[in-house]
């Protein structure tokens, strides 16, 4: 089962180089940088690197680390949910005080820690893996390479962006080992639960560290975002008009803008919670009696927090999914040997989704006690946002239509992404309609929805990107057989984990329950919960296979013999096989066409840096 079929290149490498030499843009880069101290020692090359390609790898590997941590956490709480009677004493060496062992030697997971695990799982995966690990990796890797730039606008800020992310991770990691435990109020951290140390163990030191970690994290996102936007706007090569940019760049660019506008609001929400906790303010607190005491705080509203949080929280999920969408557009196009269908429509959909994402946030708050009248507007805009999302799905399917599809791990994950986005996106239409949300809010129906769109679809986009651009990052290929195995088992397994949760939700089972035994209404689903847990274990195991494949292939993977193994049109494949600092050895290629000239004439594909032929000039351009 192969793989890495190299497409017959229309031009020989020497011919490519001649084209770039003749038409490329000469910024005298290598003369200026000859002998400079950039990347001159181990520390500046591998640790505090300012090269966007290295920083991309740093984001990726850190993201993978956190992915494993977050996934392991989910296995522990899925064990609790699927096998609540089972002895968990064997986890005591790892989880210490959070496993209580009774006289019979049977260990149980503490409910406090269960909620800590659920909280950390969400926080780690949403922020560290799907935001930093996804945007951070691919924006850094691809923006300069695909727009024809030597590096980012500010390599120094770029380096800082990674290290702030690393620091935020260290702080979060420490919080796992606190005596009172890590924060446990859900990744949404609603006050008063999060605002009152006496409300929960996790709301003590754990909450403080959680907030500090996230503030550093937001700094990282903002530094990265400013860089991506500036670079895309100012450093495109000659001929790379906005409408010639690949969809990946549009996606990363718009994502960065969304992030810049929304993340600061999260910081404000978190700071205000910290003030309530430590300075006696009452932004979110009002008339509370807890731990035997009537608190003096009056006048605040927990609902204010929810507005501030979800003002980031909703755009955040589009920050997660848009880069994955951009990657999938690219991967499906290259491996189908066809333009992505409806390029302009795809760009306008991204813009529409980005704009709309800012005016739907209160669909997370339909049942929070807000005036129901307001909810009308949020229902309207939420269901409107389904339209550009649907348009994208139809365009991806149309990209496959009439194609000559090359199946490999990358394209398979691309196809899998579309399936997952359809499944998960459709349930959003239920939840966005407030009348239905009365019943579905805070049930497993919501858990199914967001896991399928974020926990699976976004991950599939990430996997597609990793398999597809691994050769660009490391000059070698990941193993294809293992990659295909990874895909098929994860596809089936992920559906096995999350599809049944729809049934649980419609049956009324609430989310964030440590156990279902208290209620007759929720106690009918033992077998289903066992099934989900077992499926989750299998899916996790196959991810381990992926990680092994990844690291093994960095050193021992099949070597890349040609510059452009996938036969892609975009600029990143025109650099040398192991691009150094500055990406291109000589001039930067100039661009003459959009990124999707596949099979438009007798040529199987035409890279962007190839000038228009006489015929093409006569036809006017087709896209």
């Amino acid at each position: 089962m192969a793989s890495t079929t190299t497409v017959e290149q229309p031009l020989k490498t020497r011919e490519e180089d001649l084209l770039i030499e003749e038409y490329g843009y000469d910024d005298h880069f290598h003369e200026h940088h000859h002998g400079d101290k950039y990347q001159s020692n181990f520390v500046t090359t591998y640790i505090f690197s300012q090269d966007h390609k290295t920083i991309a790898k740093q984001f990726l590997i850190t993201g993978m680390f956190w992915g494993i941590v977050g996934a392991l956490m989910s296995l522990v709480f899925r064990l609790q949910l699927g096998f609540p009677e089972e002895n968990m004493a064997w986890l005591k060496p790892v989880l210490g005080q959070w496993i209580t062992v009774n006289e019979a030697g049977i260990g149980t997971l503490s409910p406090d820690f269960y909620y800590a695990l659920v909280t950390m799982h969400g926080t780690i995966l949403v922020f560290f893996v799907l935001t930093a690990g996804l945007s951070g990796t691919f924006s850094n890797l691809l923006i300069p390479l695909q727009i024809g730039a030597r590096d980012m606008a500010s390599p120094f800020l770029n380096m800082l962006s990674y290290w702030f992310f690393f620091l935020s991770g260290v702080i979060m990691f420490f919080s796992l080992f606190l005596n009172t435990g890590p924060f446990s109020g859900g990744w949404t951290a609603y006050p008063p639960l999060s605002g009152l140390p006496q409300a929960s163990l996790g709301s003590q030191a754990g909450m403080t560290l959680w907030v500090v970690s996230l503030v550093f994290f937001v700094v990282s996102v903002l530094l990265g975002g400013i860089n991506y936007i500036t670079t895309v706007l100012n450093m495109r090569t000659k001929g790379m008009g906005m409408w010639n940019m690949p969809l990946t760049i549009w996606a990363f660019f718009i994502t960065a803008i969304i992030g810049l506008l929304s993340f600061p609001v999260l910081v404000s929400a978190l700071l205000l919670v910290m003030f309530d906790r430590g300075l006696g303010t009452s932004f979110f607190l009002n008339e509370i009696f807890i731990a035997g005491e009537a608190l003096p705080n009056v006048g605040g509203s927990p609902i204010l927090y929810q507005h501030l949080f979800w003002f980031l929280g909703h755009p955040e999920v589009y920050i997660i999914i848009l880069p994955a969408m951009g990657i999938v557009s690219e991967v499906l196009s290259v491996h189908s040997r066809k333009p992505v269908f409806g390029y302009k429509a795809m760009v306008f959909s991204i813009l529409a989704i980005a704009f709309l994402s800012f005016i739907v946030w209160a669909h997370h708050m339909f049942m929070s006690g807000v005036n129901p009248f307001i909810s009308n507007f949020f229902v309207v805009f939420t269901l409107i946002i389904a339209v550009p999302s649907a348009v994208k799905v139809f365009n991806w399917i149309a990209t496959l239509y009439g194609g000559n599809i090359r199946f490999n791990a990358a394209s398979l994950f691309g196809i899998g992404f579309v399936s997952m986005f359809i499944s998960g996106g459709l349930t959003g239409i239920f939840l966005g309609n407030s009348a239905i949300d009365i019943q579905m809010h805070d049930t497993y129906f919501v858990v199914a929805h967001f896991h399928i769109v974020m926990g699976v679809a976004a991950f599939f986009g990430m996997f597609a990107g990793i398999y597809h651009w691994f050769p660009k990052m490391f000059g070698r290929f990941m193993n294809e057989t293992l990659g295909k195995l990874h895909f098929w088992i994860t596809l089936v397994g992920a559906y096995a984990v999350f599809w049944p949760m729809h049934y649980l939700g419609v049956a009324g089972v609430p989310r964030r329950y440590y156990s279902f035994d208290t209620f007759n209404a929720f106690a009918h689903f033992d077998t289903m919960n066992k099934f989900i847990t077992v499926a989750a274990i299998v899916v996790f195991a196959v991810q381990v296979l992926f990680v092994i494949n990844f690291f093994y292939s960095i050193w021992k993977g099949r070597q890349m013999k040609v510059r452009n193994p996938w036969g892609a049109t975009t600029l990143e494949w025109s650099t040398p096989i192991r691009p150094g600092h500055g990406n291109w050895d000589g001039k930067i290629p100039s661009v003459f066409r959009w990124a999707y000239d596949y099979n438009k004439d007798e040529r199987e594909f035409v890279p962007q840096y190839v000038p228009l032929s006489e015929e093409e000039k006569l036809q006017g351009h087709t896209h």
Partner: protein
Amino acid sequence: MTLLIILFCLILIIVVAVQIGRLTELANKIRGEEAAQFESNRWNGALSLVFLVVFLGGTIISSGYYGKYMLGFGPWVSASEHGGALDSMFKWTLFFTGVVFVLTHIALFWFAWKYRGRKGHKARFLPHNDNLEIIWTAVPAIVMTFLVIKGLDAWNDVMADVQPDEEYIEMEATGYQWGWMLRYPGPDGKLGARDYTLINSGNNPLGQDWTDVKNLDDFHPTEVVLPVGKKVRVRITSRDVLHNFYLPHFRVKMDAVPGMPTYFTFTPKYTTEEYRQLLGVKDNMGNPKYPEWYEIDSEDPDGRKKFQTFNFELACAELCGRGHYSMRKIVRIVSEEEFQRWADEQQSWYLLSVRNTDDDPYKGQMLTIDVEETDGGDGESDEQQTENADENPAD
């Protein structure tokens, strides 16, 4: 020891995986890259079709099988008047999304098979089609418009508060870490004022202000009891953190916010006994339609069947700390007469726990509370209730 074995097995798996990987790469080199790719395309294309069938079959069949557990399906009609409209919204949405789900998946995986790369085949240059874009923008927009209009109609209906002249029963549920405190208004039909600074865990868990005479007849039952067919307005609040008042069978859900009462109005449609009969219904042949409910309830001392011991339940649906999953109350819907009997039997909290203690503002005084029996909420003026009279306290 077990740990060592596990570790060894893991390492073995890793080694096997790596070897499979290397072997297949070698095999491809020998076979020739292009041929290997076409072979792979056939396999993966075929797998796409197999997956399509298994996936659609699995999802459709399993949804049929689990239908009997899902509220709004099987025996689970809405136990409230408004719930039918919400269930209907769900079904309309299921219809439209179901159609899209099936059609797009067929297209996706069928195209994956049909357009797999193979010898002699070339892709077509189809960059865009504006007419298609218009169609597949307009159709979803029209469907969404329909769902929005229908949904908001239902929403605004359900969430509308009571009219000024409407009759309803008011009750209050206060969430706390970790349970619910219930309060009913007593014969005067009105809940008394509360002040959280008055809360003490001993005899005033809700911080009722006893100088407000409306409080004097309020009682604190241990389960929610309501009469069938009468509108109920639940006043929902919290003592500490956010909770959520959730009655799954009634399609009732609303956050409980400290310091800001929220409300949900609904009308129970079936008594508990009637609903039990729905679960125990028999089909035309005389067999139980839902056999699971005919199993013996192991926890029932009288050995009754499950449908005979079924009860509606109140749960919390907003994470509130360690005990979030255990905030349960039973909800019983009974006939109007039985409800009246039950309410008459309840002793007011004031009389039970506060009267003549140091916290009683009327300590040592005699009390008459002149109350006209009301159905609740009909605007009786408080000035008609008198204090400091000479007769015995009313009950």
